[in-house]
């Protein structure tokens, strides 16, 4: 490829010339150009590899869990191994996949593009965050290799501080380190969104993905320090026997639960808010219509971020918290459901009189809306005191949060990846396998987790290595579903890899979408835009002469 000559034509691109133009992928070669890059797009790709690896690992642990639960007796491995496996599944998925996935991959790649900036405000901090993330991950992996940890991802005291004989501190330190990478990323996003918006890009012209990433970043900045402090206190009690949580040393175990959930409940919104942002982008792009109630959806993100800090006590309804505290947390938890419900209604209303395309990213997005609806409604059920007493710590909870985290966050992440894959790589993936993957993920997911609602109401507690025989049929269904889900997740890895070499070239804007990120070539040049864009419209304005002309032109052209 003749790079030097192609550099001289930063001109209007066509499908044929797209790959000869300089872009962030062909700007430099060699491993150093990746490991020392300050380009947000390359860092996003680095993160893509890291989180995919952690996701695969977490998925492997999930597979082992489901395999063990095929039969009522614990027969695949012993209880100590099982406890380590579900603990590592939770830790890998929550801290090393769900929290970073959308912000660090899609957010890193898209925020500068969407605000019309050359890069994030602090590129070095961005690269540092990736290194810190991996160091944290390696710490945690090291503890697995050395024998693992068996406290559950929740690290409840005094089990974690006094009774567990596993690598609690090493694992928790990994999470502590990882927290800094999350904070770096969030800080970078906040500064970028405040300071680096293109001319004309006022707050209410920002894409909703930016709004939700902004709300997420605020939650990260305010919440993560609390989990860091909590981890340090656990380490202090475990190593130095300072009495903080263990009553034998004069501590209070419920204090730990308060501190843990003061972060970890907002962390749920750290995981779901970015997903909501992605869904807003997808629904708008594949309906070719403005999101219904744009401002309402934008403010709903902020409302969720704020209210999300006031509901942690709903994890403690049966923990020995006062009944009156429980009552207040119950009603506050229901309030936070209102902005979530409003979003679902607005997305659905967006389809009305839209031009609805059934392409793969949209299938993922619509799947998200359905699954998130169920996840949200069961969440409100759990906030209802009289029900939570019975189903707390059963498979009902497990099913609920998987509907939100897997049915929500992972569906949105995959949908986003399918939508922006041509932007990131300049390639198209094959249509049929990708639609098949969306279908398999949706069906497999429901088959895996719906039976768990029934199991939970029947009373099967979570984190059980063996269980009474009457629960077996539903567990077998769940394991069967997990197999389908596993295939659904494997397919994208295969065809995305395939597309890098063999995929059809995508052109700059294969979806005919509007948005600053589509106003620049795919893949974008290192500096993102040849000319600083000037924004004159609110986002998602498809009903415009120029958009119509462009789409017609492209339709005739190809």
């Amino acid at each position, binding site marked *: 490829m003749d790079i030097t000559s192609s550099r001289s034509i930063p001109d209007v691109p066509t499908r044929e010339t797209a790959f000869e133009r300089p872009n962030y992928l062909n700007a430099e070669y060699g491993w150093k150009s990746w490991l020392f890059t300050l380009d947000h797009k390359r860092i996003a790709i680095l993160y893509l590899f890291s989180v995919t690896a952690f996701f695969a690992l977490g998925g492997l642990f999930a597979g082992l869990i489901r395999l063990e639960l095929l039969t009522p007796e614990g027969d695949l491995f012993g209880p100590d191994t099982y406890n380590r496996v579900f603990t590592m599944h939770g830790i890998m998925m929550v801290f090393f996949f769900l929290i970073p996935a959308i912000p660090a991959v899609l957010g890193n790649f898209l925020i500068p593009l969407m605000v019309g900036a050359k890069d994030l405000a602090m590129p070095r901090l961005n690269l540092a965050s990736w290194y810190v993330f991996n160091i944290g991950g390696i710490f945690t992996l090291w503890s697995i290799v050395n024998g693992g940890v068996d406290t559950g991802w929740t690290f409840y005291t005094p089990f974690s501080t006094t009774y567990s004989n596993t690598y609690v501190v090493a694992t928790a330190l990994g999470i502590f380190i990882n927290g800094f990478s999350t904070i770096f990323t969030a800080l970078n996003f906040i500064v970028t969104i405040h300071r680096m918006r293109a001319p004309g890009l006022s707050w209410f012209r920002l894409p909703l993905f930016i709004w939700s990433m902004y709300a997420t970043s605020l939650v990260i900045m305010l919440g993560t320090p609390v989990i860091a402090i909590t981890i340090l206190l656990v380490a202090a009690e475990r190593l130095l026997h300072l009495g903080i949580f263990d009553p034998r040393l004069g501590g209070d175990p419920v204090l730990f639960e308060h501190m843990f959930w003061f972060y970890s409940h907002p962390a749920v919104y750290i995981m779901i808010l970015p997903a909501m942002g992605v869904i807003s982008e997808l629904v708008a792009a594949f309906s070719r219509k403005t999101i219904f109630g744009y401002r309402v959806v934008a403010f709903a993100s902020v409302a969720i971020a704020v209210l999300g800090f006031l509901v942690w006590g709903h994890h403690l309804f049966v923990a020995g918290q006062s009944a009156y505290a429980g009552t207040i947390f119950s009603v506050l938890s229901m309030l936070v459901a209102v902005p979530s419900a409003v979003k679902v209604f607005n997305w659905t209303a967006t389809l009305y009189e839209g031009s*609805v395309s059934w392409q793969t990213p949209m299938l993922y997005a619509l799947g998200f809306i359905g699954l998130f609806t169920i996840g949200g409604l069961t969440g409100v059920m759990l906030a209802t005191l009289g029900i939570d007493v019975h189903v707390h710590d059963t498979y009902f909870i497990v099913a609920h949060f998987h509907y939100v985290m897997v049915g929500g966050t992972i569906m949105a992440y995959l949908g986003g990846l399918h939508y922006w894959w041509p932007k990131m790589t300049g390639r198209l993936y094959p249509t049929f396998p990708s639609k098949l993957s969306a279908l398999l993920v949706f069906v497999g997911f429901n088959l895996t987790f719906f039976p768990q609602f029934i199991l939970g109401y029947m009373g099967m507690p979570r984190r059980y290595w063996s269980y009474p025989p009457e629960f077996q049929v539903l567990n077998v269904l769940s394991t069967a579903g997990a197999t389908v889900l596993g295939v659904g997740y494997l397919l994208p890895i295969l065809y995305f890899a395939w597309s890098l070499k063999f995929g059809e070239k995508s052109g700059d804007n294969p979806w005919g979408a509007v948005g600053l990120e589509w106003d620049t070539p795919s893949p974008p040049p290192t500096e993102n835009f040849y000319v600083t864009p000037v924004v004159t419209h609110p986002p998602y304005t498809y009903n415009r002469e120029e958009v119509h002309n462009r789409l017609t032109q492209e339709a005739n052209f190809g």
Partner: protein
Amino acid sequence: MKSTFPLFPDSASALSHDVDALYAAWVLVSLFFTVLIAGLIIFFMARYRRRHPEEVGQKERAALWLEILWSVIPLGIMLVMFAWGTRVFFQLYRPPADAVEYTAIGKQWMWKVQHPDGQREINTLHMPLGQAIKLKLASEDVIHSFYVPAFRVKQDVVPGRYTSLWFRATKTGVYHLFCAEYCGTEHSRMIGSIIVMEPRDYENWLAGGTGGKSMVASGSDLFNSLACVTCHRASPGITQRGPSLEGVFGSQVKLADGRTVVADDNYVRESILNPTAKVVAGYDPVMPTFQGQITEEQLTQLISYVRSLGPTGAAPAGGSGGTPTAGTPAAGGASNTSSAQMDANSPLNTAGQTTGSAQKPPQK
């Protein structure tokens, strides 16, 4: 015990139907909204499917009334469900006045249950049909959770404090008892059975058991053997190092620092384990701690005894001999012979037997 493929749990307590009704209502609401959203999505997908590649959607027709409508309706439904759920919760939370107090102590990985008349069991709780039972819960190590799905009740068992839950069985049978809070290696083996019997069968069962001293009698033994009695003697008029405990339980206690606390289970517990935390006004903080010297079971026995000294009628659930079950001749007759069988390794308890003459279960 059950069919091989049940889809709904047994209902066997006075409140399980209330919980089920609340749940059923929520399931209907959820079903309605899920079908509504899914139906609309599928309809719009088909109705507004893109026919030509250059097609775009219609201009948005913003509608504030819609936004208000779909904020207010869910909010209204949730507030109703909140009120209903809270009502059920307080019913689950507050034991009725006729509840009899049993004790369950969780430890890795078993449940130790003690009946008011002293009968003990491990991982099993026999109980009479129709009788409200209040379970006082304590943990010897980590957090456990006492969970009986058929009764729709669950309560975490937290080390360092007492929690409690209550239930009234309405159907005889054998029901699962689970530990619901992850507690280590054998968490999934920390299970047992709740055996609900006709009251008559229950009494027969008690009669055939090993019996044991009642909670209060054992507590009284401990009160002497641990020498609590030296300072907390009930001898009005004489200056002593500790306050008399007559009539204290359940009353307001004035502390040296000016605060007032209610002398409940957790206060008495703290005063035994950490005596300097809340010193009664007028006394010096001279009491030694009993932390590490007495077991959770002994603590509950001591507290039962202190409660039995409380103001008139302060022990509705204390099992002070006035309960329907403890009054059976069999249980009473066995009480002095086989006490402390399960605590044979405890020096404190055997010492207690030597001073057994001092025991005087405070019958009213």
